[in-house]
């Protein structure tokens, strides 16, 4: 456990030294300022001097959910960015050899590198998410518990995204890793978004919507209680279960791939 902690901390420090985490932190801070300045806006819809309060309430919660979804996507992007060279770069520069000459298993090393970049991405995502939720709490229907549930879902999904990116990075260069994970992300999020908006899909898109990684569906279903007049399809725990299952699958794939690599590359 001590080796895991040391390697996870080193992975986080490494991400900061490579400046990826620093760039992501600066962009997050700018996004945070934007949320602080604009996230408190209230929809003021009125007709002939009469405010449409019920419609405005729905808009308030819906816009908070949209903010949360954007923060989730940002967290996944940072996780993929950091993970894409979290292990591959250490392999290329030989640091992995130096570590594996110690009594450390490959599984522990891969999981620790993954945990380090995941923590970095989640720390930035959590700060933005807390800010956005904090500012939205005075809106009708917006409460803390669903937000905590959504944060858990985003964290789980971010782990899966990072594991997938790290796994792909062991086979292809970093640019190809980012393009691949970006393409997969756009496809999955697009399909899930369409499904959340009420589209009925069959075939492959339907399978992704029903059994895919729920990168958007899991946090959205967690925040559904904020909307009183909307009900999402399927049991509420299903998107969470899918996010956990896909994160576990991506982790197993990463470990299996890393076990097969011969050093030095």
């Amino acid at each position, binding site marked *: 456990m*001590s*080796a895991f*902690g*040391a*390697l996870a901390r*080193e992975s986080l*420090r*490494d991400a900061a*030294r*490579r400046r990826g985490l620093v760039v992501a932190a600066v962009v997050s801070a700018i996004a945070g300022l934007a949320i602080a300045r604009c996230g408190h806006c209230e929809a003021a819809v009125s007709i002939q001097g009469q405010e449409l309060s019920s419609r405005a309430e729905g808009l308030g919660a819906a816009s908070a959910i949209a903010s949360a979804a954007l923060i989730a996507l940002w967290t996944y992007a940072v996780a993929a960015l950091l993970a894409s060279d979290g292990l591959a770069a250490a392999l290329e*520069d*030989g*640091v992995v*050899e*130096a*570590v*594996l*000459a*110690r*009594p*450390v*298993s490959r599984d*522990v090393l891969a999981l620790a590198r993954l945990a380090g970049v995941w923590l970095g991405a989640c720390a930035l995502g959590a700060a933005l998410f807390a800010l956005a939720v904090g500012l939205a709490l005075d809106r009708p229907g917006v409460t803390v518990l669903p937000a905590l549930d959504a944060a858990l879902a985003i964290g789980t999904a971010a782990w899966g995204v990072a594991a997938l990116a790290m796994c792909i990075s062991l086979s292809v260069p970093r640019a190809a890793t980012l393009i691949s994970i970006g393409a997969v992300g756009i496809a999955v999020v697009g399909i899930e978004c369409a499904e959340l908006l009420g589209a009925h899909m069959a075939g492959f898109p339907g399978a992704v919507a029903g059994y895919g990684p729920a990168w958007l569906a899991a946090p959205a279903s967690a925040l559904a209680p904020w909307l009183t007049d909307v009900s999402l399809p399927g049991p509420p725990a299903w998107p969470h279960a899918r996010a956990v299952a896909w994160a576990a699958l991506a982790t197993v794939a990463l470990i299996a791939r890393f076990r097969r690599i*011969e*050093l*030095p590359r």
Partner: protein
Amino acid sequence: MYAVEWRAASKRYGRRTALDALELAIPAGTCWGLLGPNGAGKTTALRLALGFARATTGEVVLQGLPPTQPAARAGLGLLPERLALPGRATPAQWLALHAELIGLARAESGTAIDAALSRTGIADRASEPIAGLSKGLRQRLGFATALLGAPALLVLDEPGSGLDPLGIRDARGWIEAERARGATVVVCSHQLSEVERTCDHVAILDRGRVVASGALHSLVREGETLEDLFVRAVRG
């Protein structure tokens, strides 16, 4: 008890055979020089011994265990030929990570790191980024990493690489001190004169096979040097 054993270990990369049924056993507490011309299989033999690669056939045993098991690498100090150090970290940070990986308690890790830094002559550069260190100082840091925590088995691949004459002299002293402490030392090098001065056993590899191995005094004939033995063994 053997520190490392290659039991008919072969390694093939496609059609190329890097190691051909290598049979070699290094007893604990001895100092061996692993020699051979370029491409003889020395580095491949070490990679198999450290668990970095798997033997195509045969097996390798490291400190009584398969090298892929983490416990086999307990008490191992490695100075690789391709010394890789994170340029943005400092020597102190790098050694602190290794102190944790080998399980040194927090109280003793500071003392061990200070001792390794001062022993290898880089204590005054401990807080500078590694990227700013010269090749010789990096090699010294490589030694500090390998020597950290008094390893039972020290594997040194081209230990003199990048070192100036003073550094080579210091390195010889560190190896002799480790031998005197009872550690097993495996030196992989092309600097035959250094191997002759530090090792009591040698194994000469050629085309993936051992062509000569044993105690240096029993292999080198009267009036011969290690270089003569090397040429005789490799050229036949």
